[in-house]
């Protein structure tokens, strides 16, 4: 089930899946000589994750890659936020899937995998063309709808009979329009988008 927060909830397995947390993004930008963005992104992302965990009481959590903005950001996480993650992990199975931003193990609890098969699904970071029953992230999909002269754009799940692509869950993340090339090619013609928000809403995937 697609939650309005951008997380995926699989009730039968009591599994919560989130993608592209990009924890530590503001730290990484500052480290590289960029602007000093408000350093509250990790806190905000974890607050929302904690709320979803309270809501679902999930026994397993799958972070679908790009959980950290880079491996340095994982190392540089402040003690407080590190402890917070540990508290969230307590009593749960926790899987970090490898992403292109965090292609190696991190010094936090939980198992570290390239991909995770739980029949009939496979969880991986970047969608493979031709795969089936696949859950992935990476592209940060978003979708927009025009309403009488106004246009609303929100992060969105994209799905068809072969695959599901999750929106980015992290606070400092942008989105790629569903009509952009890699997404439009990847998804079947009858694909739908579920726009996140207070009431998640399914629409035909905008092309």
């Amino acid at each position, binding site marked *: 089930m697609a939650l309005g927060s951008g997380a995926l909830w699989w009730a039968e397995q009591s599994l919560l899946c989130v993608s592209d947390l990009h924890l530590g993004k503001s730290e990484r930008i500052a480290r590289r000589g960029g602007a*000093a963005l408000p350093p509250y992104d990790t806190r*905000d992302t974890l607050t929302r994750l904690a709320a979803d965990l309270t809501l679902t009481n999930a026994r397993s959590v799958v972070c679908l890659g790009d959980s950290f903005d880079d491996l340095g950001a994982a190392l540089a996480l402040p003690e407080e936020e590190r402890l917070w993650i540990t508290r969230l992990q307590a009593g749960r199975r926790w899987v970090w899937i490898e992403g292109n931003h965090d292609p190696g193990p991190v010094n936090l609890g939980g198992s570290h995998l390239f991909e995770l098969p739980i029949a009939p699904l496979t969880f991986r970071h970047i969608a493979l063309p031709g795969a089936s029953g696949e859950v992935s992230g990476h592209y*940060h999909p978003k979708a927009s709808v025009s309403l009488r002269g106004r246009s609303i754009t929100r992060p969105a799940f994209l799905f068809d*009979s072969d695959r599901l692509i999750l929106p980015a869950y992290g606070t400092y993340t942008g989105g*790629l329009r569903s009509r952009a090339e890699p997404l439009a090619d990847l998804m079947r013609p009858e694909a739908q988008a579920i726009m996140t928000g207070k*009431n998640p*809403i399914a629409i035909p995937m905008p092309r």
Partner: protein
Amino acid sequence: MNALPPKFDQWFASKGWSIHPHQQQMLDRADAPALLLIAPTGGGKTLSGFLPTLVDLADGNHQGMHTLYISPLKALAADIKRNLTTPVTEMGLPITIDERTGDTTATRRKRQRADPPHIFLTTPESLALLVSYEDAPRMFKGLKRVVIDEIHALAESKRGDQMMLALARLQTICPDLKRVGLSATVEDPQAIAHFMARHPDPCEILQADPGPAPDIRMLSTEEAPPWSGGGAAYAIPAVLEEIKKHQTTLIFHNTRAQAEIFFHNLWLANEDSLPIGIHHGSLDREQRARVEAAMVRGDLRAIVCTGSLDLGIDWGDVDLVIQIGAPKNVKRLVQRIGRANHRYNAPSKALLVPANRFEVVECVAALDAVLAGDLDGDPRGPGPRDVLCQHILIAACAGPFDADDLFAEMTSAGAYAALFRAEFDACLEFCATGGYALQAYDRWQRLLQRPDGQWQLRDPRAAQRIRMNIGTIQDTDTLKVRMRRNRGGKPLGEIEEGFAATLTPGDTFLIGGQIVKYEGLREMTVEVSRDAAKKPKIATFMGTKFATSTQLSARVQQMFTQDSWPELPRHTAEWLTLQREVSQLPQPGRLLIESFPHDGREQTVIYGFAGRNGMQTLGLLLTKRMEELGLHPMGFVATDYATLIWGLDALDDPAPLFDLGALQDGLETWLAGNAVMKRTFRASATIAGLIERNTPSARKSGRQATFSSDILYDTLLRYDPDHLMMQITREEALRGLVDFGRIEEMIARVDGRIDHKRLSRVTPLAAPLFLEMGRVPVKGAAEERLLAEEATRLMETSGLAQITPPPSDKPRWRAGF
């Protein structure tokens, strides 16, 4: 008196000219630390600024740069170079002249830094960039004078603030630098003098002879103007007649969208195929350049334009200026009229075309103001701190600095003369660490304090990123528009991203005077094809909607106190008389409110005269108050003069609505989540260096790497609401689009004197409001509901609703919670 050298005398004589009195005065005062010349267009203003320079350089003894010329437009710099080269060549003066703008090639820039010309022409942005280099002292060595052209235009914007901070820097490098400002006619020369002089240097003001009074009239047509709207389509035949009678006509509009629509309609009616062009800021640069060139050659009979033609480029023989729509601001009107007839001592000719009935009144009020020489303008307030932050970073690029020295330097700029040290320190802290309540960047500070107390960049490579982001001009997010061809069709211009997002393939809109059909989006370019349709979907791309100035609004209210209006056309005078019989006219110093039922709703009209932005804000605040008071407001619409609110319940006692304290409280909460705040935040955060528009790797990483500034705003609001950027955003929003100052001014002006009229039906003055565009619904749960309805509709029409659920062996995805 400084006499002209013989060579100059002979040159003037050979041209059959004699030196203007104000040119002589400028020469006499060449040693003043700061000098402001106010002269009408065509008065040899630029030569006045440069004459002392040319005289000084005539002996060929000066080494290095002598005079720096700054103009708000690149095109102006090129123009001036041409105009200066003529006397220099003809008199055989040993003077080098060169320009530098964003378009100058890298090799020429390098040469300029190695071997600076005597006279250097540039723009505020290029100047800011130049002072950010470590070798600025070498480049500007020997600089004696700076000439700032069209300073009245710069004094109104952040570009001007940035320029003055850069000049403060130059003054430190060259302590004897003399400043000269050249300005068009303005209402408060003293304010500009304060803005441009090194604080607290005096600045003498020279007024050139303003020339003969302009010949300015209102267009009268057989047909009465419509009740509302801004298109003035009714006046097309009359305007065409005027174009035929004159050599070259400039047709000014207040917004780009209006200019496009008018241009389109003009061509539909242009049976003689008169050569008419269009020029505005959304058009592609090449297209604009083509129109400008045709204009200079005298090939065009008319140009439909916006403020992009406001500044002092010499367009040749313009003999008529037409202003479509009420001018909103008398000063701008006068400056526009100055575009006509560049021959000094000949009157400029101008024609005002009101777009609707109310604007007839406003045009007449504006005509009176022009004849009385009564210009308007609002004092601008202290210099904005986002520009200050950017300049601290610029200073850091140039090398290590001492905070005390930098503070002293910055407060020598007039706009920042009253800056408190604590405010400066907050900006420095922001530049160094981000200034967050949560200390997160101890290791990655942008600026570090060295053991000797000086500040410097932590990473010298950051200088490149900072330089890439210098500037205060905000391009709203725009997308390029191109004709769809195999590869690289013809560029047409730009439209706002928000507008592009509302387009679906097949939609038509106007750009560059032609109707085009939206085909699709490719790599951030809007692809279109030609379309033969007669009626486009309206082009709503950006156009600043100017608010009517306080002074002009007051004049209109003053007109309402007259017993009769012989100066108004009959249709308009009768309209006002009828209003007086049925209800009353708004009076100065009082607030008229009318309530009446109409369309099955209770209507309330507030004649606040606080300008469009102010009345818009008032509408938002009042509907919020009415909601609290249980009056069930449903929506509102605002013009420069009035706000119309509709709802379910009648308003009995308006007094509690106008409690300033309650309105201010409402403002606090309303502002926090407001789109205007987010837009202002984006602008200020970009200027202050929190958001980088340009990064070395930006092009490659693609769109999903960037995220919206709204997210930063929301994050700060939640975790750090008192952060410096939030303070700056509030300051900027309140004096900009929110315009709460005008509402405070209105409440003070009215001081409780409210005339509330309960009426049985709509009044003559209120009627046009029902035809206004831009009705704002009072939202709440509305957005979610609209979205749900639209989603159902889309699912139904696409047929997807029928094919869900899919076969059962495949996973099913549901939207939940």
